[in-house]
């Protein structure tokens, strides 16, 4: 019984199985993402009224918040996958971490740029050393370090494990970095709030925001599946299953 109940987990250690699962799921995630984002865009750009304090400028949050959320969730995925890879020596987990990192970096970049574009009309400057923007910038550096390190090794297995150690050191540090940056910016300027005044958000704004968050998450899942496929096939291009998979 015990043996049987873990069978599903062991199957995820097999590259051809994961490759097929990713192939199967990616289109579904992509379609759901397309629908949710289309609905979110309609609600966010067209049908919701302008904010009474920030006018139409607040509409940037419909992409800023999902990107910022994904940037953090993705580091969680990288760190979790790295732990699984280091502890159970599971190669697939490392593949997921390596595949997720560039996506995470791209969404961190997007969160930074949209934050700057939002900040210009609201704060009068593209960049202020706001705690959230600063933490996000450091997160981007952490992603870039992970990507650079895991690619620097010629042998992908060593690169995986080196990156995983770095990701774990990073995830222990992230809360410390975040709180120290918050403390530092509260010291040098009053804290800036993203939702003008109080954080009460109307339903007409919340619905599109939730749609966009779920849509971006599904989009992320679809892209991740494709990247995992790419990594697996690239690493095992000489395996028998790879020959069958490309047929």
């Amino acid at each position, binding site marked *: 019984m015990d043996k049987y109940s873990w069978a599903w987990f062991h199957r995820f250690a097999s590259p051809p199985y994961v490759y097929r699962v990713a192939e199967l799921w990616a289109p579904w995630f992509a379609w759901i993402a397309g629908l949710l984002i289309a609905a979110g865009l309609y609600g966010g750009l067209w049908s919701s009224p302008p904010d009474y304090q920030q006018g139409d400028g607040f509409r940037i949050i419909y992409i800023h918040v999902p990107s910022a959320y994904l940037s953090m969730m993705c580091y969680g995925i990288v760190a979790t996958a790295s732990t699984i890879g*280091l502890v159970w020596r599971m190669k697939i987990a490392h593949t997921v971490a390596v595949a997720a990192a560039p996506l995470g970096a791209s969404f961190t970049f997007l969160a930074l740029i949209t934050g700057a574009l939002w900040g210009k009309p609201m704060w009068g400057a593209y960049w202020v050393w706001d705690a959230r923007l600063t933490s996000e910038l*450091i997160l981007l*550096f952490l992603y870039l370090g992970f990507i650079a390190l895991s690619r*620097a090794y010629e042998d992908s297995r060593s690169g995986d494990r080196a990156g995983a150690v770095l990701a774990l050191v990073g995830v222990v540090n992230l809360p*410390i970095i975040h709180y120290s940056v918050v403390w530092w910016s509260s010291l040098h300027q009053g804290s800036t709030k993203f939702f003008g005044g109080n954080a009460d958000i109307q339903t007409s704004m919340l619905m599109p925001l939730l749609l966009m968050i779920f849509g971006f998450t599904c989009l992320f899942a679809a892209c991740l599946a494709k990247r995992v496929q790419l990594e697996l096939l690239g690493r095992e291009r000489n395996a028998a299953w790879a020959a069958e998979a490309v047929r």
Partner: protein
Amino acid sequence: MLALASRDLRISFRQPGEVLTPAMFFVLVTTLFPLGLSPQPELLRTIAPGVVWVAALLAVLVGQESLFKSDYEDGSLEQLVLSPMPLPLVAITRVTSHWLATGLPVVVLAPLMGLLMDYPTQAMGCLVLSLLLGTFTLSLLGAVGAALTVGLRQGSMLMPILVLPLAVPVLIFGAHAVAQAANGEDPSGVLYLLAAFLVLGITLAPFAIAAAVRVSLES
């Protein structure tokens, strides 16, 4: 362990050049700021905590780059891994003796650079104490980076990129303690926090360094 420590220390101090490089780097970087900005005492006093701390941080990281290099190249790192002593213990011994040779001179020179930056003399104790606590934490972080990149050709450029983002909290609190002391405030709260970082680093970093050394030797 004592034998290992004395061996590490002897190696570290054998070449005086290696001991002096981070200290020289620290002095030179600090000197560049008055030259690049302006020698006005008011300005120097304002930027002194940040400048001294950033320079010390960079100097310590530059020093860490050579931490495992020669051991890796002549194969003695492999012997250390195979020795009966647990690898995390080997790592912390190595980092400590390396810090004594590279980090400590920076701390000793810091008051001198503080004088050049018009930092108040009565706050010098806090400057030294914050650097004492902080540079060792940075040494531990840098050692993780050095262990991860020791087998790579472009490792010397990659290492600071990996470690600098992780060093942000130490920099923030270290520089803040120094600024507080200069303003006549009590910096003990922030110094306790730096000490907490150090304890956290001593507990966790040796295991990360050991794991990183193993990865580097496998490749």
